[in-house]
């Protein structure tokens, strides 16, 4: 273990002080910026228009509890195929200069800290490896979303979302066409392409952005050593039949999807050939009114799929996946309102086949470790948002994943367990029908046992011990804007 000199400790303290000062200055600036005196300053209204707000003249808050999270009106609009159903949805009613595109990016300052990381005690000399916490911080950019969506005609809608990482490496986050209200019924809508699964709690529309808080652990978890690439938070490729009641209180969906986690060219998320099977995703949710508390919604889901365990080859080159073995994710979820308080509980039970869980080809059963079994786990979170006003929301989440059954019984029972916490607030100085700007502040911390954190900003424990935890934390403050 590398020891630290008093000087290095002073440097760290100074670095921490500097970080605190930076945050304090940012906060003071924001508070000052909202003083009444500010109203006397020159007014420069944003002239750009977010796509749907421009089309329909509704403020962001009409469809979003706080953008990008949808309220029930926004869900209805989306489920109608981005239509208000007022006989003005077809683009033929729009000014020809209207172009339904929006972009979103978040310039930010963030700090990342990971404990128990392998560090060369003498920089540049890998022979002196020790264990230490690693902290990085500075100004940064998020990726950018360039989203265009809308209607091609009455009851024919589309979405195309080229999305980049922070280095402007683009991919298609979604691309689909949807035939809405088939046979004149809102119960039949058919979608074709790459799209977000009909998750009641959307990871694409939640209010967390930091490296550790910006994804649901439950949506992406696979046990250590598992070769399944499925992530429920990832957009998938396939078809979806979806239906809903007029007020969207009752919703269902049935999806048939390629077994490659939404990747293209018949490749899996690992870049290996995908199988030739199809996955199925089923959802149902029901909303009901509880007096003045608002709309409460509960739902259930089941994802059933298969993944290959080895490949048909040609000259040693993998052609396509075979030896497919099953997995499933089932659970229930809710979106509950108590006046200004929104609580979203989520539960999942996960199960992968023993060959997937141990990363062993199904034609080589002898390679399975002694006593090998199908890994199972339980995951869940409770997320809350307190909407003080439509322009100020306080957010928080606790998430836990607990292994129920290890694929290799030799592993400790808690191998792969995760605890994650996130808190923050979003303040929207601009939230109207032309553009949106939010000051986003968030702190998130994740405890991973035996595995690298989902944030990707830290590795497995330096000790190599199964049971050592890595605490991975993020602090972020930035301006999230939608244009």
């Amino acid at each position, binding site marked *: 273990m590398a020891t630290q000199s008093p000087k290095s400790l002073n440097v760290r303290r*100074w670095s921490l*002080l*500097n970080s605190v*000062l*930076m945050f304090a*200055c*940012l906060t*003071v*600036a*924001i508070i*000052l*910026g*909202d*003083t009444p*005196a*500010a*109203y006397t*300053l*020159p*007014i*420069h*209204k*944003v002239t750009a228009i977010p796509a749907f707000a421009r089309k*329909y*003249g*509704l*403020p*962001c*808050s*009409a469809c979003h509890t706080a953008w990008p999270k949808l*309220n*029930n*009106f926004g*869900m*209805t609009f989306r489920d109608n195929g981005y239509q*208000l*159903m*007022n*006989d*003005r949805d077809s683009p033929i009613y729009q000014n020809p200069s209207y172009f339904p595109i929006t972009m979103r990016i978040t310039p930010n300052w963030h700090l990342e800290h990971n404990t128990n990381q392998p560090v060369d005690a003498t920089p540049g000399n890998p022979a002196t490896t020790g264990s230490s916490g690693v902290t990085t911080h500075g100004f940064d950019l998020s990726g950018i979303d360039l989203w265009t969506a809308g209607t091609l005609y009455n009851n024919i809608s589309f979405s195309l979302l080229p999305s980049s990482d922070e280095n402007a490496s683009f991919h298609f986050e979604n691309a689909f066409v949807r035939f809405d209200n088939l046979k004149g019924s809102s119960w039949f809508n058919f979608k074709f392409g790459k799209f977000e699964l009909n998750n009641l709690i959307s990871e694409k529309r939640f209010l967390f952005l930091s490296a550790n808080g910006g994804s649901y652990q439950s949506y992406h978890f696979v046990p250590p050593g598992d070769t399944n690439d499925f992530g429920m938070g990832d957009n998938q490729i396939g078809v979806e039949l979806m239906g809903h009641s*007029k*007020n*969207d209180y009752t919703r269902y969906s049935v999806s048939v999807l390629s077994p490659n986690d939404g990747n293209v060219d018949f490749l899996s998320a690992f870049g290996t050939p995908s199988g030739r099977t199809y996955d199925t995703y089923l959802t149902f949710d029901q909303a009901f*009114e509880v*007096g*003045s508390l*608002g*709309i409460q919604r509960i739902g259930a889901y089941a994802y059933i799929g298969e993944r290959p365990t080895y490949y048909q080859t040609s000259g040693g080159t993998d052609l396509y996946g075979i030896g497919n073995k099953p997995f499933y994710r089932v659970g229930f979820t809710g979106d509950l309102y108590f006046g200004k308080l929104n609580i979203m509980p989520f539960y999942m039970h996960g199960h992968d086949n023993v060959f997937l869980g141990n990363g062993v080809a199904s034609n080589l059963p002898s390679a399975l470790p002694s006593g090998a079994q199908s890994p199972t786990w339980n995951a869940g979170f409770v997320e809350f948002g307190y909407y003080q*006003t*439509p*322009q100020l929301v306080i957010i928080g989440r606790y998430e836990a994943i607990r292994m129920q059954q290890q694929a290799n019984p030799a592993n400790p029972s808690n191998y792969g367990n995760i605890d994650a916490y996130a808190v923050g607030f979003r303040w*929207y*100085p*601009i*939230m*109207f*029908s*032309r553009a949106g*700007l939010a*000051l986003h502040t968030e702190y998130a911390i994740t405890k991973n046992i035996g595995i690298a954190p989902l944030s990707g900003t830290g590795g497995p424990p330096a000790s190599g011990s199964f049971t050592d935890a890595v605490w991975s934390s993020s602090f972020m403050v930035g301006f999230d804007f939608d244009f």
Partner: protein
Amino acid sequence: MRKLASAIASMLPVVVLLFFTTASPCYAQIDHHLTPVNTSAEAKIDGLTGHASGEQQGGLMLYRRFCVGCHGPAGDGTGENALWIDPKPRDFTLAVFKCRSTPTGTLPTDDDLYKSVTRGFDTTNMPAWRPLTDQQRANLVAAVKSFSPRWLNEKAGTPITIPAETPINIESVLRGRALFQKMECWKCHGPAGHGDGPSASTLTDSKDNPIRPYNFSTGTRFKCGETNHDLYQIFMTGLDGTPMPSFADSLKPEDAWDLVHFLRTLQPLNTQEASLWKAYAAAHKSEIKPIGPDAGSGGSK
């Protein structure tokens, strides 16, 4: 201490920059100060069990979230989007409403407003707010009523009585067609109900904004509902604030029902009236006179 001062000094440009960048757009936010004139408005909605009263404060919070962009902080229809919207948003300060069950010139009932909020207005920017809860919509009605002093001094009109619908048959459709000619409905709505009559381009609403007559051939719903009952009510109450008058004094109830049955044939819907008319028109093509100025005022068959 010197380091601290240095750090603060280095942050000064950031503070100044953020002050100006965050300050200037503050005006363009939805944090409007609403200016209701009636501070005790409430709404009693029939048929809502357990929570029949719409509450103003809750309604104004919802108004700020959903409505202020078009209808404005004062409810006068001058929200930030009003400039781009056609037809223009309703001016709640005048308390003049199209869709009522009450006679022309009177205030609507709370149920009328509740139905308007729920149903929205076809071919306008006003969506159906059905995804909101019953209570939320009732609260919004209270908020709408808070913007006009009329609600302080006047009571809502008494809903008109709608008699039982007369039988739907081809005779009724033909009588309605003759009335459409005689009452000169075609001058605004056009001979085929396309909203393209000779007077159509000259029409304005009570605030002098251009307004188009209803086009029966595209809309599947009327401004104030979609049933025969709703259409009858439109004739007899008129659409206040628009050139569409009330025919309560000039149409007998049975005549109004005939007109309802004929207008149903102009819509792109598979209604009973449309089927009857289609069959009749196929069999009596040569006998049918066109609607319009050449048909005279004596009616057309």
